[in-house]
Protein backbone atom coordinates (compact mmCIF):
# COMPACT_ATOMS: atom_id res chain seq x y z
CA UNK A 1 0.00 0.00 0.00
CA UNK A 2 1.31 3.41 -0.85
CA UNK A 3 2.00 5.85 1.97
CA UNK A 4 -0.35 8.83 1.86
CA UNK A 5 1.81 11.74 0.71
CA UNK A 6 1.46 15.29 1.89
CA UNK A 7 1.49 17.87 -0.84
CA UNK A 8 5.08 19.18 -1.08
CA UNK A 9 4.06 22.33 -2.93
CA UNK A 10 3.50 24.66 0.07
CA UNK A 11 6.88 23.75 1.59
CA UNK A 12 8.65 24.19 -1.71
CA UNK A 13 6.99 27.57 -2.15
CA UNK A 14 8.09 28.57 1.37
CA UNK A 15 11.66 27.41 0.71
CA UNK A 16 11.67 29.28 -2.62
CA UNK A 17 10.46 32.47 -0.92
CA UNK A 18 13.08 32.13 1.82
CA UNK A 19 15.94 31.62 -0.64
CA UNK A 20 14.75 34.39 -2.92
CA UNK A 21 14.62 36.74 0.09
CA UNK A 22 18.18 35.81 1.03
CA UNK A 23 19.34 36.18 -2.59
CA UNK A 24 17.66 39.59 -2.80
CA UNK A 25 19.38 40.65 0.45
CA UNK A 26 22.77 39.46 -0.90
CA UNK A 27 22.17 41.27 -4.20
CA UNK A 28 21.32 44.53 -2.45
CA UNK A 29 24.29 44.12 -0.10
CA UNK A 30 26.66 43.64 -3.07
CA UNK A 31 25.51 46.98 -4.46
CA UNK A 32 26.71 48.79 -1.34
CA UNK A 33 30.51 49.25 -1.69
CA UNK A 34 30.78 50.54 1.90
CA UNK A 35 29.13 47.33 3.09
CA UNK A 36 31.34 45.05 0.99
CA UNK A 37 34.60 46.77 2.02
CA UNK A 38 33.50 46.82 5.69
CA UNK A 39 32.61 43.13 5.57
CA UNK A 40 36.02 42.35 4.05
CA UNK A 41 37.79 44.21 6.89
CA UNK A 42 35.59 42.52 9.50
CA UNK A 43 36.41 39.10 7.99
CA UNK A 44 40.13 39.93 8.00
CA UNK A 45 39.95 40.91 11.69
CA UNK A 46 38.00 37.69 12.31
CA UNK A 47 40.72 35.60 10.65
CA UNK A 48 43.40 37.46 12.65
CA UNK A 49 41.46 36.74 15.83
CA UNK A 50 40.80 33.06 15.16
CA UNK A 51 44.07 31.99 13.49
CA UNK A 52 46.57 34.83 14.11
CA UNK A 53 49.44 32.53 13.18
CA UNK A 54 48.21 32.56 9.59
CA UNK A 55 48.93 36.24 9.00
CA UNK A 56 51.36 37.13 11.81
CA UNK A 57 55.05 37.04 10.85
CA UNK A 58 56.56 36.58 14.34
CA UNK A 59 55.72 35.26 17.78
CA UNK A 60 54.03 38.33 19.40
CA UNK A 61 55.96 37.89 22.67
CA UNK A 62 59.35 36.89 21.19
CA UNK A 63 62.00 39.30 22.48
CA UNK A 64 64.74 40.26 20.03
CA UNK A 65 67.43 42.55 21.45
CA UNK A 66 68.84 43.26 17.97
CA UNK A 67 65.50 44.67 16.77
CA UNK A 68 64.89 47.05 19.71
CA UNK A 69 62.85 50.06 18.52
CA UNK A 70 63.66 49.27 14.90
CA UNK A 71 61.85 51.21 12.19
CA UNK A 72 59.31 49.61 9.81
CA UNK A 73 61.16 47.30 7.41
CA UNK A 74 60.68 44.10 5.39
CA UNK A 75 61.56 42.13 8.53
CA UNK A 76 59.29 44.15 10.88
CA UNK A 77 56.46 45.69 8.82
CA UNK A 78 55.23 47.96 11.64
CA UNK A 79 58.62 48.23 13.38
CA UNK A 80 59.53 46.69 16.76
CA UNK A 81 58.98 47.85 20.35
CA UNK A 82 61.55 48.51 23.09
CA UNK A 83 61.97 44.76 23.69
CA UNK A 84 62.35 44.09 19.96
CA UNK A 85 58.89 42.46 19.72
CA UNK A 86 57.33 42.67 16.27
CA UNK A 87 54.58 45.32 16.34
CA UNK A 88 52.72 43.93 13.30
CA UNK A 89 52.43 40.50 14.92
CA UNK A 90 51.30 42.08 18.19
CA UNK A 91 48.64 44.08 16.31
CA UNK A 92 47.45 40.86 14.60
CA UNK A 93 47.28 39.00 17.93
CA UNK A 94 45.59 42.03 19.52
CA UNK A 95 42.65 41.46 17.17
CA UNK A 96 41.68 38.44 19.30
CA UNK A 97 41.41 40.57 22.45
CA UNK A 98 39.49 43.29 20.62
CA UNK A 99 37.01 40.92 19.03
CA UNK A 100 36.65 38.77 22.14
CA UNK A 101 35.76 41.83 24.23
CA UNK A 102 33.44 43.08 21.47
CA UNK A 103 31.58 39.77 21.16
CA UNK A 104 31.36 38.95 24.86
CA UNK A 105 30.38 42.49 25.90
CA UNK A 106 27.69 42.59 23.19
CA UNK A 107 26.71 39.02 24.24
CA UNK A 108 26.17 40.23 27.83
CA UNK A 109 24.29 43.30 26.57
CA UNK A 110 21.99 41.23 24.33
CA UNK A 111 21.78 38.31 26.79
CA UNK A 112 20.36 40.54 29.51
CA UNK A 113 18.82 43.33 27.43
CA UNK A 114 16.85 41.07 25.04
CA UNK A 115 14.79 39.13 27.63
CA UNK A 116 14.41 42.30 29.73
CA UNK A 117 13.14 44.34 26.78
CA UNK A 118 10.89 41.49 25.58
CA UNK A 119 9.31 41.09 29.00
CA UNK A 120 8.86 44.85 29.59
CA UNK A 121 7.34 45.40 26.14
CA UNK A 122 5.08 42.35 26.39
CA UNK A 123 3.65 42.90 29.88
CA UNK A 124 3.21 46.65 29.36
CA UNK A 125 1.50 48.91 31.88
CA UNK A 126 3.08 50.12 35.09
CA UNK A 127 5.53 47.21 35.38
CA UNK A 128 6.89 48.11 31.93
CA UNK A 129 7.12 51.78 32.98
CA UNK A 130 9.03 50.90 36.14
CA UNK A 131 11.35 48.47 34.32
CA UNK A 132 12.14 50.98 31.60
CA UNK A 133 12.74 53.90 34.00
CA UNK A 134 15.56 51.82 35.50
CA UNK A 135 16.96 51.24 31.98
CA UNK A 136 16.58 54.97 31.17
CA UNK A 137 18.58 55.86 34.27
CA UNK A 138 21.29 53.32 33.37
CA UNK A 139 21.32 54.66 29.81
CA UNK A 140 21.61 58.25 31.02
CA UNK A 141 24.46 57.28 33.34
CA UNK A 142 27.76 58.19 31.65
CA UNK A 143 29.00 54.88 30.21
CA UNK A 144 32.64 55.26 31.21
CA UNK A 145 31.73 56.18 34.79
CA UNK A 146 29.62 53.05 35.11
CA UNK A 147 32.42 50.94 33.62
CA UNK A 148 35.00 52.51 35.96
CA UNK A 149 32.79 51.89 39.01
CA UNK A 150 32.42 48.22 38.03
CA UNK A 151 36.20 47.90 37.52
CA UNK A 152 36.93 49.73 40.79
CA UNK A 153 34.77 47.23 42.67
CA UNK A 154 35.70 44.04 40.81
CA UNK A 155 39.33 44.86 40.01
CA UNK A 156 41.26 45.43 36.79
CA UNK A 157 41.65 42.81 34.04
CA UNK A 158 40.14 41.77 30.75
CA UNK A 159 37.22 39.74 32.14
CA UNK A 160 36.05 42.61 34.33
CA UNK A 161 36.37 45.01 31.39
CA UNK A 162 34.09 42.73 29.33
CA UNK A 163 31.54 42.63 32.18
CA UNK A 164 31.77 46.42 32.64
CA UNK A 165 31.20 47.17 28.94
CA UNK A 166 28.46 44.49 28.81
CA UNK A 167 26.59 46.16 31.69
CA UNK A 168 26.89 49.52 29.93
CA UNK A 169 25.34 47.98 26.77
CA UNK A 170 22.36 46.32 28.53
CA UNK A 171 20.04 49.39 28.47
CA UNK A 172 20.84 50.01 24.77
CA UNK A 173 19.47 46.58 23.76
CA UNK A 174 16.67 46.58 26.33
CA UNK A 175 15.31 49.87 24.94
CA UNK A 176 15.53 48.73 21.31
CA UNK A 177 13.92 45.32 22.00
CA UNK A 178 11.18 46.83 24.15
CA UNK A 179 10.30 49.31 21.40
CA UNK A 180 10.13 46.58 18.74
CA UNK A 181 8.19 44.27 21.09
CA UNK A 182 5.50 46.91 21.58
CA UNK A 183 4.71 46.78 17.86
CA UNK A 184 5.39 43.03 17.36
CA UNK A 185 2.96 42.01 20.10
CA UNK A 186 0.08 43.63 18.18
CA UNK A 187 0.42 41.02 15.42
CA UNK A 188 -2.20 38.33 14.89
CA UNK A 189 0.28 35.47 15.34
CA UNK A 190 0.87 36.59 18.95
CA UNK A 191 -2.90 36.69 19.54
CA UNK A 192 -3.15 33.23 17.97
CA UNK A 193 -0.39 31.87 20.24
CA UNK A 194 -2.12 33.38 23.27
CA UNK A 195 -5.44 31.86 22.17
CA UNK A 196 -3.78 28.44 21.90
CA UNK A 197 -2.67 28.78 25.50
CA UNK A 198 1.07 29.31 24.93
CA UNK A 199 2.94 30.43 28.05
CA UNK A 200 4.69 33.81 28.31
CA UNK A 201 8.25 32.46 27.78
CA UNK A 202 7.11 30.59 24.64
CA UNK A 203 5.36 33.67 23.25
CA UNK A 204 8.37 35.87 24.03
CA UNK A 205 11.12 33.64 22.68
CA UNK A 206 9.38 31.62 19.95
CA UNK A 207 7.03 34.20 18.50
CA UNK A 208 8.17 37.75 19.35
CA UNK A 209 11.99 37.40 19.64
CA UNK A 210 12.62 36.34 16.01
CA UNK A 211 10.70 39.40 14.84
CA UNK A 212 12.72 41.91 16.88
CA UNK A 213 16.15 40.52 15.96
CA UNK A 214 16.85 42.78 12.95
CA UNK A 215 17.38 46.02 14.94
CA UNK A 216 19.32 44.02 17.56
CA UNK A 217 21.66 42.71 14.83
CA UNK A 218 22.25 46.24 13.53
CA UNK A 219 22.93 47.54 17.03
CA UNK A 220 25.20 44.54 17.72
CA UNK A 221 27.48 45.59 14.87
CA UNK A 222 27.65 49.14 16.22
CA UNK A 223 28.03 47.74 19.76
CA UNK A 224 31.11 45.72 18.79
CA UNK A 225 32.73 48.90 17.42
CA UNK A 226 31.86 50.69 20.66
CA UNK A 227 33.24 47.84 22.79
CA UNK A 228 36.51 47.74 20.80
CA UNK A 229 37.09 51.46 21.44
CA UNK A 230 36.26 51.10 25.14
CA UNK A 231 38.48 48.06 25.61
CA UNK A 232 41.33 49.95 23.95
CA UNK A 233 40.63 53.01 26.12
CA UNK A 234 40.47 51.02 29.38
CA UNK A 235 43.58 49.00 28.46
CA UNK A 236 45.30 52.27 27.50
CA UNK A 237 44.55 53.52 31.02
CA UNK A 238 46.04 50.28 32.36
CA UNK A 239 42.72 48.91 33.63
CA UNK A 240 42.09 46.22 31.00
CA UNK A 241 44.44 43.78 29.31
CA UNK A 242 47.65 43.43 31.30
CA UNK A 243 51.16 43.08 29.76
CA UNK A 244 52.65 41.08 28.13
CA UNK A 245 49.31 40.12 26.45
CA UNK A 246 48.94 42.14 23.26
CA UNK A 247 45.93 44.43 23.03
CA UNK A 248 45.56 47.49 20.83
CA UNK A 249 45.10 49.68 23.92
CA UNK A 250 48.21 48.38 25.71
CA UNK A 251 50.24 48.77 22.48
CA UNK A 252 49.28 52.46 22.43
CA UNK A 253 49.99 52.83 26.13
CA UNK A 254 53.55 51.53 25.75
CA UNK A 255 53.98 53.60 22.55
CA UNK A 256 53.18 56.85 24.38
CA UNK A 257 56.65 56.89 26.00
CA UNK A 258 58.34 56.74 22.61
CA UNK A 259 56.13 59.21 20.78
CA UNK A 260 58.94 61.70 20.17
CA UNK A 261 61.39 59.14 18.79
CA UNK A 262 59.40 56.14 17.46
CA UNK A 263 56.02 57.51 16.43
CA UNK A 264 55.09 54.52 14.24
CA UNK A 265 54.62 52.45 17.41
CA UNK A 266 51.52 54.56 18.07
CA UNK A 267 50.46 55.12 14.45
CA UNK A 268 49.91 51.50 13.31
CA UNK A 269 47.84 50.17 16.24
CA UNK A 270 45.77 53.37 16.16
CA UNK A 271 45.06 53.10 12.43
CA UNK A 272 44.09 49.44 12.99
CA UNK A 273 41.55 50.46 15.67
CA UNK A 274 40.11 53.21 13.46
CA UNK A 275 39.75 50.90 10.43
CA UNK A 276 38.17 48.11 12.49
CA UNK A 277 35.70 50.38 14.28
CA UNK A 278 34.91 52.15 11.00
CA UNK A 279 34.19 48.75 9.39
CA UNK A 280 31.81 47.66 12.18
CA UNK A 281 30.06 51.07 12.19
CA UNK A 282 29.61 51.15 8.40
CA UNK A 283 28.49 47.51 8.36
CA UNK A 284 25.90 48.39 11.02
CA UNK A 285 24.72 51.36 8.94
CA UNK A 286 24.41 49.26 5.77
CA UNK A 287 22.62 46.42 7.61
CA UNK A 288 20.22 48.98 9.08
CA UNK A 289 19.45 50.35 5.64
CA UNK A 290 18.87 46.88 4.20
CA UNK A 291 17.05 45.26 7.11
CA UNK A 292 14.89 48.12 8.25
CA UNK A 293 14.00 50.59 5.51
CA UNK A 294 11.99 52.71 7.99
CA UNK A 295 15.22 53.67 9.73
CA UNK A 296 16.92 54.73 6.50
CA UNK A 297 18.56 58.12 7.01
CA UNK A 298 17.23 58.30 10.56
CA UNK A 299 20.41 59.94 11.68
Amino acid sequence: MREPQTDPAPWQAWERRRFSREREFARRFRHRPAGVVSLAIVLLVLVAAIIPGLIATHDPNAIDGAATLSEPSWEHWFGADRLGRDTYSRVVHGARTALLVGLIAVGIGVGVGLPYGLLAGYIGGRKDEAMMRLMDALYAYPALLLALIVIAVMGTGLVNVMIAIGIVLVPVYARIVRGSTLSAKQNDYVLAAEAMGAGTPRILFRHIAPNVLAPVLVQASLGIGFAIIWEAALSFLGLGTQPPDPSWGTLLKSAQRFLATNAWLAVFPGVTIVLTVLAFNLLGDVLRDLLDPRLRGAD
Partner: protein
Amino acid sequence: MTSYIVQRLLATIPVLILISLITFFAVALLPGDQAIALLGLEADVRQLEAVREQLGLNRPVVERYFHWVYDALQGDLGHSVRADRAVSDLIAKRLQVSLELAILATLIALTIGIPLGLLAGSRPNTPFDYGGTTFAVLGAAIPDFWLALMLILAFAVGFGWFPATGFTPFLDDPVENLRSLVLPAVAIGTGQAAVLARQTRAALVEVLRQDYVRTAYAKGLPGRAVILRHAFRNALIPVVTVFGIQVSTVVAGFVIIESVFNLPGVGKLLVDSVFQRELQTVQAIGIMLAVGVALTNLVVDVSYAFLDPRIRYA
Protein backbone atom coordinates in the same frame (compact mmCIF):
# COMPACT_ATOMS: atom_id res chain seq x y z
CA MET B 1 5.94 77.45 29.39
CA THR B 2 6.23 77.64 33.19
CA SER B 3 4.25 74.42 33.57
CA TYR B 4 6.57 72.72 31.06
CA ILE B 5 9.65 73.82 33.02
CA VAL B 6 8.09 72.72 36.34
CA GLN B 7 7.17 69.39 34.74
CA ARG B 8 10.76 68.87 33.57
CA LEU B 9 12.10 69.80 37.02
CA LEU B 10 9.79 67.29 38.68
CA ALA B 11 10.73 64.59 36.14
CA THR B 12 14.40 65.07 37.07
CA ILE B 13 13.80 64.04 40.70
CA PRO B 14 13.24 60.29 40.01
CA VAL B 15 16.23 60.35 37.61
CA LEU B 16 18.43 61.74 40.39
CA ILE B 17 17.11 59.11 42.83
CA LEU B 18 17.85 56.33 40.31
CA ILE B 19 21.35 57.74 39.68
CA SER B 20 22.05 57.65 43.42
CA LEU B 21 20.71 54.07 43.61
CA ILE B 22 22.87 52.90 40.68
CA THR B 23 26.01 54.59 42.03
CA PHE B 24 25.54 53.26 45.54
CA PHE B 25 24.37 49.74 44.80
CA ALA B 26 26.90 49.16 42.00
CA VAL B 27 29.56 49.49 44.69
CA ALA B 28 27.60 47.79 47.46
CA LEU B 29 26.26 44.77 45.58
CA LEU B 30 28.95 43.86 43.03
CA PRO B 31 31.34 41.17 44.28
CA GLY B 32 34.32 42.68 46.11
CA ASP B 33 35.17 43.77 49.65
CA GLN B 34 35.93 47.49 50.04
CA ALA B 35 38.20 46.88 53.02
CA ILE B 36 40.24 44.21 51.20
CA ALA B 37 40.28 46.43 48.10
CA LEU B 38 41.90 49.19 50.15
CA LEU B 39 44.30 47.20 52.33
CA GLY B 40 45.08 44.23 50.09
CA LEU B 41 44.69 40.49 50.64
CA GLU B 42 47.53 40.28 53.19
CA ALA B 43 45.89 42.72 55.60
CA ASP B 44 45.39 41.79 59.23
CA VAL B 45 41.82 40.81 60.25
CA ARG B 46 41.74 43.53 62.91
CA GLN B 47 42.89 46.17 60.42
CA LEU B 48 40.18 45.05 57.99
CA GLU B 49 37.59 45.22 60.76
CA ALA B 50 38.74 48.73 61.70
CA VAL B 51 38.40 49.96 58.11
CA ARG B 52 34.97 48.30 57.80
CA GLU B 53 33.93 50.10 60.98
CA GLN B 54 35.37 53.41 59.73
CA LEU B 55 33.55 53.13 56.39
CA GLY B 56 30.37 51.88 58.07
CA LEU B 57 30.43 48.64 56.06
CA ASN B 58 29.08 46.59 58.99
CA ARG B 59 25.73 48.37 58.89
CA PRO B 60 22.80 47.07 56.77
CA VAL B 61 23.11 48.13 53.13
CA VAL B 62 19.81 50.05 53.00
CA GLU B 63 20.71 52.02 56.12
CA ARG B 64 24.11 52.82 54.53
CA TYR B 65 22.39 54.07 51.38
CA PHE B 66 20.20 56.53 53.27
CA HIS B 67 23.18 57.73 55.33
CA TRP B 68 25.21 58.17 52.16
CA VAL B 69 22.46 60.20 50.44
CA TYR B 70 21.86 62.29 53.58
CA ASP B 71 25.57 63.09 53.89
CA ALA B 72 25.95 63.76 50.15
CA LEU B 73 23.07 66.25 50.24
CA GLN B 74 24.99 68.13 52.93
CA GLY B 75 28.18 68.17 50.84
CA ASP B 76 29.86 65.30 52.69
CA LEU B 77 30.96 62.84 49.99
CA GLY B 78 32.96 60.59 52.29
CA HIS B 79 36.56 60.30 53.36
CA SER B 80 39.55 59.17 51.32
CA VAL B 81 41.43 56.64 53.46
CA ARG B 82 44.67 56.88 51.45
CA ALA B 83 44.77 60.69 51.16
CA ASP B 84 43.26 61.05 54.67
CA ARG B 85 41.15 63.95 53.44
CA ALA B 86 37.52 64.66 52.72
CA VAL B 87 36.66 63.49 49.19
CA SER B 88 34.84 66.79 48.55
CA ASP B 89 38.14 68.66 49.24
CA LEU B 90 39.99 66.43 46.76
CA ILE B 91 37.34 67.04 44.11
CA ALA B 92 37.05 70.79 44.73
CA LYS B 93 40.80 71.24 44.13
CA ARG B 94 40.55 69.56 40.72
CA LEU B 95 37.20 70.71 39.50
CA GLN B 96 38.48 73.89 37.84
CA VAL B 97 40.73 71.98 35.42
CA SER B 98 37.95 69.61 34.33
CA LEU B 99 35.34 72.36 33.99
CA GLU B 100 37.68 74.51 31.93
CA LEU B 101 38.53 71.53 29.72
CA ALA B 102 34.87 70.51 29.28
CA ILE B 103 33.81 74.05 28.35
CA LEU B 104 36.67 74.47 25.87
CA ALA B 105 35.98 71.06 24.28
CA THR B 106 32.27 71.88 23.96
CA LEU B 107 33.07 75.24 22.34
CA ILE B 108 35.35 73.50 19.84
CA ALA B 109 32.66 70.88 19.10
CA LEU B 110 30.02 73.56 18.49
CA THR B 111 32.21 75.82 16.36
CA ILE B 112 33.35 72.96 14.11
CA GLY B 113 30.33 70.63 14.15
CA ILE B 114 27.39 72.95 13.51
CA PRO B 115 28.86 75.06 10.66
CA LEU B 116 30.16 71.89 9.00
CA GLY B 117 26.73 70.26 9.30
CA LEU B 118 25.07 73.39 7.91
CA LEU B 119 27.48 73.50 4.99
CA ALA B 120 26.97 69.81 4.20
CA GLY B 121 23.19 69.87 4.68
CA SER B 122 22.59 73.00 2.64
CA ARG B 123 24.53 71.60 -0.32
CA PRO B 124 23.55 67.92 -0.48
CA ASN B 125 25.56 65.66 -2.82
CA THR B 126 28.32 68.22 -3.38
CA PRO B 127 31.99 67.97 -2.35
CA PHE B 128 31.06 69.99 0.80
CA ASP B 129 28.52 67.32 1.73
CA TYR B 130 30.92 64.43 1.04
CA GLY B 131 33.68 66.17 3.02
CA GLY B 132 31.36 66.84 5.97
CA THR B 133 30.01 63.28 5.95
CA THR B 134 33.53 61.80 5.77
CA PHE B 135 34.55 63.93 8.76
CA ALA B 136 31.46 62.77 10.66
CA VAL B 137 32.02 59.06 9.92
CA LEU B 138 35.77 59.20 10.66
CA GLY B 139 35.28 61.30 13.79
CA ALA B 140 33.00 58.64 15.26
CA ALA B 141 35.59 55.89 14.68
CA ILE B 142 38.73 57.66 15.94
CA PRO B 143 39.31 57.02 19.66
CA ASP B 144 39.89 60.35 21.39
CA PHE B 145 42.97 59.08 23.25
CA TRP B 146 44.65 58.06 19.98
CA LEU B 147 43.75 61.42 18.43
CA ALA B 148 45.34 62.98 21.52
CA LEU B 149 48.57 61.04 20.86
CA MET B 150 48.57 62.14 17.21
CA LEU B 151 47.96 65.77 18.22
CA ILE B 152 50.89 65.58 20.67
CA LEU B 153 53.00 64.07 17.89
CA ALA B 154 52.13 66.83 15.41
CA PHE B 155 51.70 69.98 17.48
CA ALA B 156 53.81 69.37 20.59
CA VAL B 157 56.66 67.15 19.35
CA GLY B 158 56.61 68.29 15.70
CA PHE B 159 55.83 72.02 15.67
CA GLY B 160 56.34 72.66 19.38
CA TRP B 161 53.33 74.98 19.50
CA PHE B 162 51.74 73.44 22.60
CA PRO B 163 53.04 71.55 25.64
CA ALA B 164 52.76 67.74 25.42
CA THR B 165 51.69 67.33 29.05
CA GLY B 166 51.10 69.38 32.19
CA PHE B 167 48.82 72.20 33.27
CA THR B 168 49.30 75.88 34.14
CA PRO B 169 46.56 77.41 36.36
CA PHE B 170 44.66 80.33 34.82
CA LEU B 171 45.63 82.77 37.59
CA ASP B 172 49.35 81.96 37.18
CA ASP B 173 49.46 82.61 33.43
CA PRO B 174 46.24 82.82 31.34
CA VAL B 175 48.05 82.33 28.00
CA GLU B 176 49.98 79.26 29.20
CA ASN B 177 46.74 77.97 30.74
CA LEU B 178 45.03 78.13 27.35
CA ARG B 179 48.05 76.57 25.60
CA SER B 180 48.04 73.65 28.03
CA LEU B 181 44.35 72.95 27.33
CA VAL B 182 44.12 73.41 23.55
CA LEU B 183 45.28 69.92 22.52
CA PRO B 184 43.22 68.05 25.15
CA ALA B 185 40.15 70.10 24.23
CA VAL B 186 40.61 69.42 20.50
CA ALA B 187 41.04 65.69 21.25
CA ILE B 188 37.71 65.61 23.12
CA GLY B 189 35.87 68.13 20.92
CA THR B 190 36.60 66.51 17.53
CA GLY B 191 34.50 63.40 18.22
CA GLN B 192 31.65 65.57 19.51
CA ALA B 193 31.97 67.83 16.45
CA ALA B 194 31.60 64.77 14.20
CA VAL B 195 28.34 63.74 15.88
CA LEU B 196 26.99 67.30 15.83
CA ALA B 197 27.92 67.72 12.15
CA ARG B 198 26.14 64.48 11.22
CA GLN B 199 23.04 65.43 13.22
CA THR B 200 22.93 69.02 11.93
CA ARG B 201 23.25 67.81 8.34
CA ALA B 202 20.48 65.22 8.74
CA ALA B 203 18.15 67.68 10.50
CA LEU B 204 18.76 70.42 7.93
CA VAL B 205 18.15 68.10 4.97
CA GLU B 206 14.85 67.10 6.60
CA VAL B 207 13.80 70.69 7.32
CA LEU B 208 14.71 71.93 3.84
CA ARG B 209 12.01 69.59 2.44
CA GLN B 210 9.27 71.37 4.42
CA ASP B 211 6.63 73.54 2.78
CA TYR B 212 7.54 76.68 4.71
CA VAL B 213 11.06 76.54 3.30
CA ARG B 214 9.64 76.25 -0.22
CA THR B 215 7.40 79.23 0.60
CA ALA B 216 10.40 81.22 1.82
CA TYR B 217 12.24 80.50 -1.43
CA ALA B 218 9.08 81.33 -3.44
CA LYS B 219 8.89 84.71 -1.70
CA GLY B 220 12.27 85.40 -3.24
CA LEU B 221 14.33 85.29 -0.03
CA PRO B 222 18.04 84.73 -0.62
CA GLY B 223 19.29 81.19 0.18
CA ARG B 224 21.38 82.34 3.15
CA ALA B 225 18.35 83.97 4.81
CA VAL B 226 16.18 80.89 4.23
CA ILE B 227 18.75 78.60 5.79
CA LEU B 228 19.81 80.75 8.71
CA ARG B 229 16.45 82.34 9.60
CA HIS B 230 13.90 79.68 8.67
CA ALA B 231 15.54 76.28 8.45
CA PHE B 232 18.40 76.41 10.96
CA ARG B 233 16.25 77.25 13.98
CA ASN B 234 13.98 74.27 13.38
CA ALA B 235 16.89 72.00 12.53
CA LEU B 236 18.42 72.95 15.89
CA ILE B 237 15.82 71.04 17.94
CA PRO B 238 17.15 67.51 17.23
CA VAL B 239 20.71 68.88 17.33
CA VAL B 240 20.11 70.18 20.86
CA THR B 241 18.81 66.73 21.88
CA VAL B 242 21.97 65.09 20.60
CA PHE B 243 24.06 67.77 22.27
CA GLY B 244 22.42 66.80 25.58
CA ILE B 245 23.26 63.13 25.01
CA GLN B 246 26.83 64.07 24.05
CA VAL B 247 27.48 65.69 27.42
CA SER B 248 28.10 62.27 28.93
CA THR B 249 30.62 61.58 26.15
CA VAL B 250 32.45 64.81 27.06
CA VAL B 251 32.64 63.51 30.63
CA ALA B 252 34.10 60.21 29.36
CA GLY B 253 36.47 62.25 27.19
CA PHE B 254 37.98 64.27 29.97
CA VAL B 255 38.34 61.22 32.21
CA ILE B 256 40.62 59.58 29.61
CA ILE B 257 42.24 62.66 28.12
CA GLU B 258 43.29 64.09 31.49
CA SER B 259 45.31 60.92 31.99
CA VAL B 260 46.93 61.22 28.54
CA PHE B 261 47.99 64.83 29.14
CA ASN B 262 48.62 64.34 32.87
CA LEU B 263 46.18 67.13 33.78
CA PRO B 264 45.33 67.35 37.49
CA GLY B 265 41.55 67.21 36.99
CA VAL B 266 38.64 65.19 38.38
CA GLY B 267 39.01 62.60 35.59
CA LYS B 268 42.62 61.88 36.54
CA LEU B 269 41.58 61.64 40.21
CA LEU B 270 38.88 59.14 39.22
CA VAL B 271 41.27 56.93 37.25
CA ASP B 272 43.87 57.09 40.06
CA SER B 273 41.15 56.19 42.58
CA VAL B 274 40.08 53.20 40.47
CA PHE B 275 43.70 51.97 40.51
CA GLN B 276 43.95 52.48 44.27
CA ARG B 277 40.43 51.02 44.67
CA GLU B 278 39.35 54.05 46.71
CA LEU B 279 35.70 53.17 46.29
CA GLN B 280 34.35 56.12 48.28
CA THR B 281 36.16 58.56 45.99
CA VAL B 282 35.04 56.65 42.87
CA GLN B 283 31.47 56.66 44.18
CA ALA B 284 31.62 60.38 44.98
CA ILE B 285 33.02 61.38 41.58
CA GLY B 286 30.54 58.99 39.89
CA ILE B 287 27.51 60.57 41.54
CA MET B 288 28.82 64.11 41.04
CA LEU B 289 29.46 63.68 37.31
CA ALA B 290 26.25 61.69 36.72
CA VAL B 291 24.18 64.38 38.48
CA GLY B 292 26.05 67.02 36.46
CA VAL B 293 25.10 65.22 33.23
CA ALA B 294 21.45 64.86 34.36
CA LEU B 295 21.24 68.57 35.24
CA THR B 296 22.81 69.58 31.91
CA ASN B 297 20.15 67.47 30.19
CA LEU B 298 17.53 69.31 32.25
CA VAL B 299 18.88 72.63 30.94
CA VAL B 300 18.81 71.19 27.40
CA ASP B 301 15.19 70.10 27.88
CA VAL B 302 14.21 73.53 29.18
CA SER B 303 15.93 75.17 26.21
CA TYR B 304 13.41 73.41 23.91
CA ALA B 305 10.80 75.78 25.29
CA PHE B 306 12.77 78.70 23.88
CA LEU B 307 13.50 77.03 20.56
CA ASP B 308 10.13 75.46 19.86
CA PRO B 309 7.05 77.71 20.02
CA ARG B 310 4.80 74.62 20.12
CA ILE B 311 6.17 73.92 23.61
CA ARG B 312 6.19 77.61 24.59
CA TYR B 313 2.50 78.14 23.86
CA ALA B 314 1.28 74.68 24.84
